[in-house]
């Protein structure tokens, strides 16, 4: 193979951009990095055009595989299916947004852009790599730029936040790695597709029952920290709050999805039985993350910390849907199948929607913080709407998308999730509604306190959004409306996978004798 294929380009163009951004003079570096960051969106859309319509249920729509380390049976294996493509598109939207959000940074701006592009390429690698060795390379490398981005450009507590973030994540990944070492020792391959063929009990047999449980726990831990699943979330609020705006956007919108992606792509196919056994507990943990995150957000006075906890709530919905489907204990039949498909569709769509909302909200919170001279407690703001109507309007759309107002994108995915979870685990779904309610409370408080009421000294002379700032969020806000009104293209992208994965629910129930 002489010409690099589309998938290779997809992953490595941002890395090339990182190199260029680091060496070019500042003025060119901005334009070049933005252009190469946009390549992801362009390539993602053209991939979408190549494989139109409802994506095939099983298998990868496009893949490339080259022998890499024949002695270890490891190959350079990239591939996309509907889920991967959805996340590639999300990354394609968020990557340029993060760069635009950091546009005016003068000092160290080249390095910042290079690191952001490095993170973008690594995230794309995670979403398209189909061999653990390659996949883990991207997974771990994504930490490096984020660590330095938080550490060097973050707020006063950034040093500690960056250290905590990396140690937690490396801690999880170390056990993930051990899990795959064990899988390799037993199965002799680390290719996701080949491993999936062994999933029907063969892998468990090879590892032994106790071994399989241990390996499951190791792999689980790696993803649970990354998402994060309650109670592994304590790194999240400081990391999101201390990170500079562009980085917080990328972190919450894209990198948090790497963990959910890992659950769907890696853990579930390999260990369906273990996941089913654990689902009862996990469902409670996801619920605790959703409700606890929302309650914690209510108690926050710092805008960014509030958004950080809101993020925890929203990704917990994805896990809620996933664990409701995996733990279907005894539920079978048409209705269960329909509920399962809805839940999974919703979970995957929620990954995309939360990405848009989180990026937009972190950006706008960053704007507020910058305008107020670095202050970002609720009490510092008031009456911003009078001075900055555009800011207020865009922030309102993002907030209402986040709390699930019908007509905006957040509603579609949360509705699908709760519809599905109600069909499978009604009690949990009912309890989860509490989170929806509390989310509405704090997001409305946010809007009310910041944009209405009497102006404070800090906000009296607020400038409205500049053209560049509007451009930064415009795509996301437009997409919120588009997906909210016409979600079919995105649903079509993932529906095939959801039907495939939920298929066991449709089987006739066979009581174990």
């Amino acid at each position, binding site marked *: 193979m002489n010409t690099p294929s589309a998938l290779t380009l997809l992953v490595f163009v941002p890395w090339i951009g990182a190199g260029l951004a680091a060496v070019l003079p500042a003025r060119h570096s901005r334009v070049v990095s933005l252009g190469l960051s946009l390549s992801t969106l362009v390539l993602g859309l053209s991939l979408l055009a190549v494989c139109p319509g409802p994506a095939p249920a099983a298998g990868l729509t496009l893949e490339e595989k080259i022998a890499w380390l024949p002695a270890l049976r490891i190959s350079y294996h990239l591939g996309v299916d509907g889920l991967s493509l959805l996340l590639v598109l999300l990354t394609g939207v968020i990557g340029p947004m993060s760069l635009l959000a950091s546009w005016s940074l003068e000092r160290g701006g080249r390095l910042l852009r290079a690191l952001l592009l490095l993170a973008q390429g690594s995230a794309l690698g995670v979403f398209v790599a189909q061999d653990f060795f390659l996949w883990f390379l991207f997974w771990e490398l994504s930490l490096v730029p984020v660590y330095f981005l938080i550490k060097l*450009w973050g707020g006063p507590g950034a040093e500690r936040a960056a250290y905590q973030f990396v140690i937690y994540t490396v801690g999880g990944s170390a056990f993930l790695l051990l899990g795959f070492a064990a899988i390799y020792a037993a199965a002799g391959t680390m290719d996701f597709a080949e491993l999936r063929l062994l999933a029907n009990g063969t892998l468990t047999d090879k590892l032994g029952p106790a071994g399989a449980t241990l390996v499951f726990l190791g792999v689980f831990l790696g993803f649970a920290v990354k998402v994060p699943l309650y109670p592994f979330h304590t790194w999240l609020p400081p990391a999101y709050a201390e990170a500079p705006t562009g980085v917080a956007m990328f972190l919450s919108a894209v990198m948090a999805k790497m963990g959910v992606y890992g659950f769907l792509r890696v853990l579930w196919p390999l260990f369906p039985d273990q996941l089913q056994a654990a689902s009862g507990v996990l469902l409670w943990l996801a619920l605790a993350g959703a409700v606890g995150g929302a309650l914690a957000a209510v108690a926050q006075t710092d805008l960014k910390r509030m958004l950080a906890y809101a993020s925890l709530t929203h990704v917990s919905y994805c896990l809620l849907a996933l664990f409701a489907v995996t733990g279907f204990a005894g539920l079978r039949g048409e209705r269960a199948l329909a509920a399962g498909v809805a839940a999974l569709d919703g979970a995957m769509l929620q990954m995309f929607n939360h990405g848009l909302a989180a990026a937009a909200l972190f950006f706008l919170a960053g704007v507020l913080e910058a305008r107020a001279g670095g202050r970002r407690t609720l009490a510092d703001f008031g009456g911003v709407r009078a001075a900055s109507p555009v800011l207020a309007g865009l922030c309102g759309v993002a907030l209402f998308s986040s709390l699930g107002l019908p007509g905006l994108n957040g509603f579609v995915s949360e509705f699908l999730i709760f519809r599905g979870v109600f069909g499978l685990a009604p009690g949990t779904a009912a309890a989860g509604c509490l989170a929806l309610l509390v989310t509405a409370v704090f997001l409305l408080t946010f809007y009310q306190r910041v944009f209405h009421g009497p102006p404070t000294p800090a906000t009296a002379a607020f400038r409205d959004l500049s053209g560049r700032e509007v451009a930064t969020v415009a795509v996301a806000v437009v997409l919120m409306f588009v997906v909210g009104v016409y979600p079919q293209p995105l649903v079509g992208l993932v529906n095939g996978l959801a039907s495939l994965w939920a298929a066991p629910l449709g089987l006739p129930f066979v009581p174990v004798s």
Partner: protein
Amino acid sequence: MSLLPWTIYLSFAGALVVLVAGTRSAAAARWLALATTAGGWGVTLLAGLSFRSAPGLQTLVDVRWIPELGVRYHLAADGISLTLVVLTGLAATAGVLFSWNVAERAGEFLALYLALVGGVYGVFLSADALLFLVFYELAIVPKYFLIARWGSTRREYGAMKLVLYSFAGSALVLTGILWAQAAGGGHGFALADLARGGFTPAQQRAMFALVFLGFAVLAGLFPFHTWAPTGHVAAPTPASMLLAGVVMKLGAYGCLRVALPLFPAGFAFWQPVIAWLAVAGVVVAGLAALVQEDFKFVIGYSSVSHMGFVLLGLAAANARAVSGAVLQMFSHGVIAGLLFAVVGRMVYDRTHTRRLADLRARPLHRWLPFAAVTFVVAGLASMGMPGFSGFPAELTILIGVWPVSRTWAVAAVAGVLIAAAFTLRAIQLAFFGQTGAMGANPPDDGGDRALRPLPPITWPERVGALLLLAATVLVGLKPDLLLNWIVPSLQSPLLQTALRGGAP
């Protein structure tokens, strides 16, 4: 392949030439030393290109040496020794580049350095147990002088401690080998002959304990590792690089080449003990590195922690884990060299302090950006980040260890985590202590002399660092390059006997 013995001769001859040239001109001595080490490295690479893997050692030279004792001058190589001589050539060349600023008796310094390199080549190529020991002892003497005369912090103490541990270790090995030779009743000390000794299991246990312990001391086996941090810290930078990078591998290599094949039953008996000590070393040395106040001690302890992985791989006793252990030897040799180069040459020679608290007060990432980037990359490699050589090595070891004992594997993973913690701590304190956001103005130096910017990184330093970085990335992305040498060598009948055990 047949050129390999010339690495030894070239190094010793180079030592003499450099010694003479050094009395006239330090610059000449430097260039000659560089030519010698680069030449040696070139020879090893040529040998690597022409290497055809086959199970077992391929004889290079075999002549009678002391017929009365049956000692032969028998040099041989397989994929394992080839991996390690390539490492030696690389580390030695980089070391010379990092000794470019040694002004005090540069000729003598480089001559001793080359003698050490020659001894190391000799050990890796010996196929006769006594010859092995001769080279091994030959390497100890230059170490002492390098540290005691050109070292820093408590150099005499560090040098003496290191030498006493080394000699004690080789005395144990010698005892074990002599006993084995007497008990076996054969004539001569060829490893292949000794292995046919037909020792009873009880004998094997005792002999293995002597020989293994003797070598393992040099590999930094817990709790006999304390010489390593003190010695490495006291040593001048190029010597630290070679000591931690290559000389510690002599110990591990001795375990693999002599102790395991000669006494397989003894090995099987001691295997759990070794594994537990190795795991303890990984964890304890990692924790020690986490609390050091001296930058160089962090690296010193990290070396012990990483060598624990090598010993764990050997103790797992299957082909997978042992191939990982050899890969880790190479990887750690390169990474430790880099880390010591940054700490000793790039930072300490400029700031004259290694206390993390002092370094923290300076924005080193702005004053020495090249050093900061090198240390960050080397630190990532040391943490086992994918894309660098440490990752395939540690992964291969874990894959090999898991079927043998899950507990060991989990404990070793805890070690990986600790490595991440102490590496990040060192990066933060040493280079990014004066943070402030990048947006902030640089702190006013206020005319304080201690805060003046430092001399920039020189070209020899850059070249040396890039050589080592390239090696760790190359092996990280393409570990097959080395595994294709290592794995077939493990098929040799001698090693197979030892590696039969292990897997359930």
